[in-house]
């Protein structure tokens, strides 16, 4: 028998108070298996103990939401009986330790969350963040993560259609790998994780259990220190081939009337799936671990319960349907084992080698889970000091060239060309634009999907940054003509035990709440990753927002590419020329202080709703929102992707960095053909929306006020070369 001592308890991340609670609830010392179970269930990753009180405040409903937070993924109504099922999840720490496998298994995990609900995954996105480009680990981590994401998604045959990449020194020792998956299901064929039916069988399917990632859940919640290299646990290796079989087998079984409840084994493996399913159903669960298919010999109950081997699922089915179900998994060559039974005892009971290894009342694990109202302090930067912005003699085109060849503004083509973004043949708008558009197979409806976050804004002003992240997501979805419906989020922060970090969390959530409410854009699923911190230095607060919108009729949508000569280019929304926290300030002026741009949510909504109407009713087909880098960068992206130039005419006073590169929010660029221009101007005026004529599309150059010009071809090269040059060196 392993002795439970102070050190062991501490190693399991359980504090004195929590241990007291365990003792008083069990009325005895826990066994090692039980200690492991408590540790996993009460880890930050599974219990959300620091974040729960804040997450509860997020808006989670609108008239399209079918399932909000609390299930494996969120579900929204797409009409005609179709639903979209989606979620985003982090795999930050594993990816830092082993970038390829960490990222790959992150993608695998999020797909299981989606298909466990009965949805066929149809799109993947990823939001990835790395340290400084000259940090010695960055190249290795970047190439590993990108090929891991591609390696898994490509093999699954699910297109990776979007995402974001950022470099910033705050991620030097804590990279972020957030993966999002979207699936499509029929509303009346959605599967949930609530176990029911005393006497029903608990069935394990998928790959065998090995000693992978044991303690992964606790690892993912523990702050790194310098010797974490030494403490490397067995890394999880992904097997996308097994997952593809698991996907097909599960979807096949789901067409039969057999599954009562189902849940993937993700973080904390068998422990969390068994506990969550039973708790949700208010039933007890007995497991006989001798029946669990194991890959290695002599695995202990502790190891089996905590293993994070990939590509596994737990299901509840009626005992007399076992044979029928097994036949499906046999066909796909996957393990199928009945490992337990639902009981009326409200206890989790675990037997192994004819010994009782654990017996815990489920409510102790679930509702007894700690929840902390951690103290917080919301800190923001002081106002942006305009006097730091010195006049520059450098030509706008020169600045533009430097900006679009900088790591955070250059083309991400190198990344997404490594992802199969077309498989399934429903990718209508590929990566590179604002939101991706994926057609709902066999219909004329489209989903617009995007992931967004601007951590430097959140760091400078958590509340405003939280708003901005949601608003930017909404704007991206709107830009392609879709109606934004709901979001998933991945909240990546530092150590919540520090007041100012908890303040970042509280501030960002507060901002998000306001934006979600005003934009009618609720949160239906998500994930929290805390302790992204090394040697006391935390990352920028990074709420990655994964947004989804619906295009009811794909006869109308818009893309950012310029399409024709002689269109009128309009800048919609007001430009004050605010440079605080802009890329221009950082890259060109080296100023990183000051507040970020303000988001006016009412205005945001008015402009966005109008843009969407112009697309849907007036057939506007070319729209791009303005974000990082400001107006001229956005316009350049439109030019490059369409291969069409623009003759820009501006007031002399506007030929300034403030106007060209300021990051004022709530703005779009649209390109309008002659036959639509009068209608569109009339509507903008009618709605009282500020706009400005910028120029006309023509030729192959960007020309500013007839004086400065550059060939798009050469801009394209500068824009696309950065990654290749970086990785060559």
């Amino acid at each position, binding site marked *: 028998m392993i002795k439970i001592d102070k050190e062991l308890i501490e190693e399991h991340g359980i504090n004195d108070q929590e241990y007291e609670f365990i003792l008083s609830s069990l009325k005895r010392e826990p066994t090692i298996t039980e200690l492991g179970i408590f540790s996993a269930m009460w880890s930050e990753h599974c219990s959300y103990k620091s974040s729960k009180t804040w997450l509860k405040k997020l808006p989670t409903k609108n008239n399209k939401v079918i399932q909000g937070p609390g299930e494996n993924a969120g579900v929204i109504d797409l009409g005609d009986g179709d639903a979209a099922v989606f979620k985003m999840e982090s795999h930050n720490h594993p990816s830092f330790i082993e970038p390829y496998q960490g990222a790959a298994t992150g993608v695998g995990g999020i797909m299981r969350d989606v298909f466990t609900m009965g949805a066929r995954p149809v799109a993947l996105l990823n939001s990835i963040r790395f340290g400084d480009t000259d940090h010695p680990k960055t190249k290795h981590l970047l190439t590993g993560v990108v090929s891991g994401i591609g390696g898994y998604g490509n093999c699954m045959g699910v297109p990776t259609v979007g995402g974001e990449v950022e470099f910033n020194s705050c991620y030097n020792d804590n990279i972020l790998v957030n993966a999002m998956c979207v699936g499509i299901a029929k509303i009346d064929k959605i599967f949930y994780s609530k176990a029911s039916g005393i006497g029903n069988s608990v069935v394990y399917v998928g790959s065998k259990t090995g000693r992978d990632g044991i303690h992964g859940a606790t690892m993912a919640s523990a702050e790194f220190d310098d010797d974490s290299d030494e403490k490397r646990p067995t890394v999880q290796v992904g097997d996308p081939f*097994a997952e593809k079989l698991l996907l097909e087998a599960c979807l096949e079984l789901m067409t039969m009337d057999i599954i009562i409840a189902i849940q993937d084994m993700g973080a904390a493996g068998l422990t969390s799936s068994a506990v969550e399913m039973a708790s949700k159903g208010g039933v007890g669960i007995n497991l006989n671990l001798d029946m669990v298919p194991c890959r290695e010999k002599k695995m202990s109950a502790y190891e089996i319960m905590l293993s994070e081997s990939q590509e596994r699922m737990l299901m509840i089915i009626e005992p007399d349907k076992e044979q029928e179900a097994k036949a499906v998994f046999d066909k796909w060559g996957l393990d199928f084992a009945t490992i337990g039974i639902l009981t009326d005892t409200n206890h989790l009971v675990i037997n192994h080698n004819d010994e009782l290894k654990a017996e815990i009342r489920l409510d102790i694990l679930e509702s007894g889970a700690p929840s902390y109202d951690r103290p917080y302090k919301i800190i923001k930067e002081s106002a942006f000091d305009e006097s730091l912005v010195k006049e520059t003699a450098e030509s706008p085109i020169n600045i533009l060239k430097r900006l679009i060849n900088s790591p955070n503004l250059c083309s991400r083509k190198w990344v997404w060309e490594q992802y199969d973004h077309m498989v399934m043949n429903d990718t209508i708008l590929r990566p590179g634009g604002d939101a991706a558009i994926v057609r709902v197979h066999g219909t004329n409806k489209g989903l617009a999907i995007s992931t967004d976050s601007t951590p430097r804004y959140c760091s400078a002003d958590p509340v405003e940054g939280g708003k901005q992240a949601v608003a930017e997501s909404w704007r991206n979805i709107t830009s392609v003509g879709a109606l934004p419906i709901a979001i998933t989020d991945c909240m990546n922060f530092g150590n919540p035990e520090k007041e100012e970090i908890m303040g970042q969390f509280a501030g960002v959530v507060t901002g998000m709440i306001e934006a979600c409410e005003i934009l009618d854009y609720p949160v239906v699923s998500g994930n929290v990753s805390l302790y992204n911190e090394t040697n006391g230095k935390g990352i920028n607060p990074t709420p990655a927002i994964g947004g989804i919108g619906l295009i009811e009729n794909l006869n109308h949508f818009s893309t950012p590419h310029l399409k024709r000569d002689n269109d009128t280019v309009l800048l919609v929304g007001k430009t004050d020329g605010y440079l605080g926290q802009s890329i221009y300030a950082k890259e060109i002026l080296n100023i990183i202080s000051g507040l970020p741009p303000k988001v006016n949510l009412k205005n945001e909504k008015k402009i966005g709703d109008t843009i969407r109407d112009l697309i849907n009713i007036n057939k506007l087909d070319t729209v791009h929102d303005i974000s990082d880098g400001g107006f001229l960068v956005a316009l350049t992206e439109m030019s490059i992707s369409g291969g069409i130039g623009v003759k820009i005419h501006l007031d002399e006073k506007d030929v300034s960095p403030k106007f060209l590169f300021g990051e004022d929010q709530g703005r779009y660029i649209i390109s309008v053909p002659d036959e639509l221009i009068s209608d569109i101007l009339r509507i903008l005026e009618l709605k009282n929306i500020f706009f400005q004529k910028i120029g006309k599309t023509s030729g192959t150059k960007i020309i500013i006020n007839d004086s400065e010009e550059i060939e798009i071809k050469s801009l394209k090269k500068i824009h696309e070369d950065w990654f290749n040059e970086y990785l060559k060196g």
Partner: protein
Amino acid sequence: MKSLVKIMPKKGVLDPQGKAIENSLKQLGFPQIKKVKQGKIIEIEIDADNESDAREIITNASNKLLANLVIEDYEITFLKED
């Protein structure tokens, strides 16, 4: 001098390739084949005065690049010159 670096998945680390090959061989009618693991082999031609120098360089290269020590073990051998 010619040397071989044999790189295999660490014990306990999942080896999806090996597993798939194993299943395939069984289906192809090789019931005698019990277990398959797949690894990499890297053949290196190196300029060095003696084996111990060469081993040092290759160990270095293996740690730095050839093997992924988180999930792989490696082993260096030398080929007899012919």
